[in-house]
């Protein structure tokens, strides 16, 4: 029973409870909360950030961070807009945009994994660099001459359902990242790197190669999110997704991923995303503006770490108590055998 309770005392359990609570409060305060329209609108509003949060989880589990994600999204949007304005067919333009994203990730990865520079500083630099390049490419204009099939992908739902098309992208990616992190050799290696990079290196893990792959993956997915956002807004702008890096990192940490790496699950991150989405939607319906919602999100982020800290201390104390009890029993047995 005790062991069972201890297993339940996980961050994900608390997230489920918080999520249920926020949905219950939202539904009881506003009749519009649980309508399919609101759920559909709330989820498509979160979708780009949710998509980026998935590969970012892998980066953070491996003990690094990437805060250039939102700038990569902006650069992708600007590149896509410029190419389409220049008459490049949309398919080719999207391909080039994703390629630009991959190159952004390659630069991050090379500087971090090959030169051994701290990822916080490198991606702070590329945060400014990529956003600056986005403005240099597209300026303050916006490009909106997109074919209708492209823009309808951004805000239409799958026929017959209320599921936005973009949710399909998220679901596919979530499954892929889940399998990668929890059911593959690479996933186990990510935890190993995040827990003890030195030990992982001595066990023959190619840390640099894996990290470069992670940064390329994250930036490419960010560029994909830029394409999706451009479709949803029917407009490519250099300032698309400005400041979103903080939202996305918050969602990942709220999902129970340790900022120091080595701990966290995709399930938790998905729950964290749903919690943020439901809170923001509920507060919006209660006429609370986005900036004031931040008070709730920020407090939740701080409490999430305070909570895991306390949970860990409790669990460690229980563990050490059990160990001392076992040692005492063993000691008594040895004494009894000796006498």
């Amino acid at each position, binding site marked *: 029973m005790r062991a069972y309770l201890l297993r339940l005392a996980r961050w994900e359990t608390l997230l489920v409870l918080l999520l249920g609570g926020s949905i219950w409060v939202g539904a009881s305060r506003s009749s519009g909360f649980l309508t399919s329209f609101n759920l559909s609108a709330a989820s498509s509003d979160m979708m780009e950030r949710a998509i980026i949060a998935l590969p970012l989880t892998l980066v953070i589990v491996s003990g690094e961070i990437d805060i250039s994600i939102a700038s990569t999204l902006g650069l992708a949007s600007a590149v896509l807009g410029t190419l389409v304005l220049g008459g490049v067919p949309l398919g080719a333009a999207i391909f080039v945009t994703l390629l630009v994203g991959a190159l952004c990730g390659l630069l991050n990865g090379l*500087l971090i994994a090959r*030169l*051994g*520079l*701290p990822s*916080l*500083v*490198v991606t*702070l*630099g*590329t*945060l*400014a*660099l*990529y*956003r*600056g*390049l986005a*403005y*240099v490419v597209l*300026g303050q204009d916006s490009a909106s001459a997109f074919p209708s099939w492209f823009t309808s992908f951004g805000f239409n739902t799958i026929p017959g359902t209320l599921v936005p098309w973009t949710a399909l992208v998220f679901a596919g990616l979530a499954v892929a990242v889940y399998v990668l992190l929890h059911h593959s050799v690479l996933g186990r290696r990510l935890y190993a790197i995040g827990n003890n990079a030195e030990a992982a290196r001595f066990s023959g893990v190619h840390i640099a190669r894996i990290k470069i792959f992670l940064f390329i993956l994250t930036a490419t997915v960010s560029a994909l999110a830029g394409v999706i956002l451009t479709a949803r807004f029917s407009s490519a702008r*250099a300032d698309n997704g400005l*400041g979103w890096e*903080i939202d996305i*990192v*918050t969602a990942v*940490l709220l999902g129970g991923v340790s*900022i*120091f790496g080595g701990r966290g699950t995709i399930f938790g991150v998905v729950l964290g995303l749903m919690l943020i989405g439901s809170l923001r939607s509920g507060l919006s319906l209660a006429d609370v*503006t986005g*900036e*004031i*919602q*931040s*008070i*709730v*999100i*920020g*407090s939740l*982020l*701080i409490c999430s*770490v*305070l909570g895991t*800290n306390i949970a860990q201390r409790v669990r460690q104390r229980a563990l050490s108590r059990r160990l001392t009890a076992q040692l005492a029993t063993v000691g008594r047995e040895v004494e009894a055998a000796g006498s």
Partner: protein
Amino acid sequence: MLDERAAGIAAPRPPRLASWLGVVARYRAVGLVLALVLLGFGVSIETTRFLALGNLENILRSVSILAIVAVGQTLVVLTRNIDLSVGSSIGLVAFISADTLKHHPGIGVGAVVVLGLAIGAGLGIINGLLVVVGEVPAIVATLGTLYVYRGVDFLLASGKEVDASDVPQRFLNLTTTHFLGLPIPVLFALAITTIAFYLLRSTVPGRELYAIGSNPDAAGLVGIRTGRLVFAAFLICGLLCGLAGVLWSSLYGTVGASAATGFELQVVAAVVVGGVNIFGGSGSVIGVLLAAIFFGTIDNALAILNISAFWLQAITGAAILAAVALDAFVALRIRIALRTGRRR
């Protein structure tokens, strides 16, 4: 023969990067001054307006707020922590001080400064408590307070902003008045940098900050009260944000709830380009001051040369990358120099 044996037992000498390039690479201040001189020279060829006294004063005035906060951030980063909430703290204090003067125009400027300092200190104390007592990693704790402080700012402002015409002229004069030939914010920045330089270089708590950043566990083992000092670093950083917030609202006059949004990135950029190791333990406020001036000068030069301000962000990013890459290069050279020194 004798020489060889003497060399063999000698302790490894400090690395010597003989070329002038090596000197530039090893001392960030030298490199930054060189970059500033080159930049100034290049811009002056294009236009004489750059070196005009009024323009230089403009640069210094806008740089001083960045420099004041960057000094506070330096103290925090030296201890292997970071304060991402500085932009929100400045914005909150800027709005409260402007709003207070709007509703109580009779209050003295000095009282507003004290109020700003008190609020800033309070915000710093919250950060410090979360990090030291709550054991929340600084990057997470201050990311959270970045949100919360900004949210409180918007809650207080509730959509309104304070206009320059709403506050007394003597408050706006705070940043334009000259004293000893320099605008007051510049004097503040110089005084704070000088005090921080002295504290970090020549006092026990200052040296202990470096010790904490180099190796927090070892610092605790040799009896340094790491918790107290980290708390103090956050407190002082908050205090300086408070001062910067008051100066901000005096300098720009019109203050809304979104003042200084994203300013934390410029501050961290100045600290890193100024040569402070993001993992703590090394760096000097002189480099940070020069880096702040460097960014202010680029900003101004782009405006004067009529180059789109969009380039500023790209250049800032490239400067950060160049600075950290240079650090890595120098560290590598020093390691190689040490190794060859030993072999000899």
